């Protein structure tokens, strides 16, 4: 490989990692909901789209920076998630039906309504938040003058990535150190045992759905400075989140982070070497490979080693 080729490869991997950090945040929200409630939330990407539109409105009307709008979008999404769970998903979980996948279809319905309402309010035009630092970047040659290769790091991408890291860290703290976080994890492990230990399972489910929505909503705020926005964008991110969840193992938070990073890098590689249009195919190649070779998720490879099986 010649120097320019190495440069392209490293640059691709770098941007893949940055993208993967954001993907991880989306995936964690989904895996959390899946672990605790045992349902797949197919409105996940649409919730992210709602978060993005909140950030967009705040930016274009009040000129609030998209990164600051996390503090408004996340609580708003938390509330939306709670309402959806309480008044739509919970009643369905109690209904007796022939098809057990009713709640999945329900979330599809919710997603359809959300994206259609967004189309009506905002029209299907592509929207962006033109922040003035959008094109700023750091270059390797600024720091290391004699560097043989040139790498660049986009400012909004790296800020988004660090925010994603911070949110993930905060979530980790919440889940492992606080009482409520522990109750949520207990519910995920064994609902009935948790109930016997005095955990309010019903409430934990509502909180989890809210939390998952808030996470994906803040991911939306992190995405909007570097991405564009249109009402139907949700579907592709729902799929991304699902692929990450399968890749990382169902209900595993660490798995979601690893899965997100792998997916980000792989997608970045396919779009560099096979063409932009093929990037979604790359995503699903990973998905199928995961299903066939590591159906328990990527983390199962490590646990097996740890127990010496």
């Amino acid at each position, binding site marked *: 490989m010649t120097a320019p080729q190495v440069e392209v490869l490293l640059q691709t991997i770098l941007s893949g990692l940055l993208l993967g950090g954001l993907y991880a945040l989306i995936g964690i929200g989904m895996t959390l909901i899946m672990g605790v409630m045992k349902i797949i939330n197919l409105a996940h990407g649409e919730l992210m789209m709602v978060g993005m539109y909140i950030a967009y409105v705040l930016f274009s009307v009040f000129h609030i920076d998209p990164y600051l709008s996390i503090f408004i979008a996340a609580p708003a999404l938390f509330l939306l998630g709670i309402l959806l769970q309480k008044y739509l998903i919970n009643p369905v979980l109690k209904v007796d*039906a022939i098809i057990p996948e009713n709640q999945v279809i329900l979330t599809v319905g919710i997603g359809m309504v959300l994206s259609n309402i967004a189309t009506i309010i905002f029209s299907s035009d592509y929207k962006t938040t033109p922040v003035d630092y959008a094109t700023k970047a750091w270059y390797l040659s600024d720091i290391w003058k004699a560097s043989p290769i040139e790498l660049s790091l986009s400012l909004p991408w790296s800020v988004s990535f660090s925010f994603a890291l911070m949110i993930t860290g905060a979530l980790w703290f919440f889940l492992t150190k606080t009482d409520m976080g522990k109750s949520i994890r207990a519910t995920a492990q064994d609902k009935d045992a948790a109930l016997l230990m005095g955990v309010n399972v019903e409430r934990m489910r509502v909180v989890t759905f809210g939390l998952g929505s808030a996470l994906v909503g803040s991911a939306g705020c992190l995405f909007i400075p570097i991405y564009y926005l249109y009402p139907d964008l949700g579907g592709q991110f729902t799929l991304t989140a699902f692929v990450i969840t399968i890749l990382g193992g169902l209900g595993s938070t660490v798995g979601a982070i690893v899965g997100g990073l792998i997916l980000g890098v792989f997608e970045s590689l396919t779009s560099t070497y096979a063409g932009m249009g093929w990037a979604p195919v790359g995503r699903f190649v990973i998905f199928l490979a995961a299903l066939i070779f590591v159906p328990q998720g990527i983390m199962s490879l490590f646990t097996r080693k740890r127990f010496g099986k």
Partner: protein
Amino acid sequence: MKKTLPLFIAGILALLPLIGLSSYWMHILILVLMWSVIGMAWNLLGGYCGQVSFGHAAFFGVGAYTAGILYNKTGVSAWWGMPLSVIVVALFALLIGYICLRLKGPFFALGTLAMGVILRVTAENLTTITEGDLGIMIRERTWIDKTWYFYIILLIAIVSFFIVKKVIESKLGYYFVAIREDQDAAESLGINTTFYKTIALTLSAVLTGLAGVFYTNYMGYIDPKIVFALHDISIVTIMVVMVGGVATYWGPLVGAIIMVFLAEIIRSIPKLGAAHHTFFGVLLIVIIIYLPNGITGDLPKLKRLFGKGKAA
């Protein structure tokens, strides 16, 4: 009465073009029949066998593209896609089944959903074969008049109806229902669940593929975003069955009538036209919460409801 009802309804449908309906109404009827074929196919897999597929657009699209590519590359009539699609779609179904049927419940649903998207993106990018986003145009229409199209789709619908009925009333049908009710129990009773699920998937896929071939011939234009559409094909398929009645013979027809008419009515109202997905979504939510087995499936419940209304 019960035995002759299918023949009776088929007879009425066959006589409909004779009363001189306008071209628009013929179009609506054709759409209703096409959707009921897809619905019946989905019902076989989702309703009876319990494997909820979110990716029936994959089979619809493969069928449509079999006909389209055949026409585009060799120049023979796209109707030859009918026999050819049976083989092609069955092969695709076996492949998709091999990958997705190792998944259970909701994960199967998402696996199939992903398959639909994979095929769409592939069709968009393999421009040498599929013409990509340009789509394939059938340049000479077989008939200007819609009557023959109507009879062809009616024939497909009748055949599908009887295939589904025969399968469900045979031993296979009992295996399917056993798998739906409890897969592990079925397995322990000696039913090779993967084998029977593959049969259900392949049959369902082939019927859906035929509807796809018909679509290519009837509409005369296909592109990946239309025939592999997630919302407008896969989800609408599920809605047709959910609204009409899961695991019932007549559910898909009832659902197709309601969905097609609803779509037409909403689209014709000015300003509300853009909101038709909202209406679909709300309808879906309402149906799932209040009539989880669809209109045909929950008919006794509906009757009771209205009976009570009269008494009060």
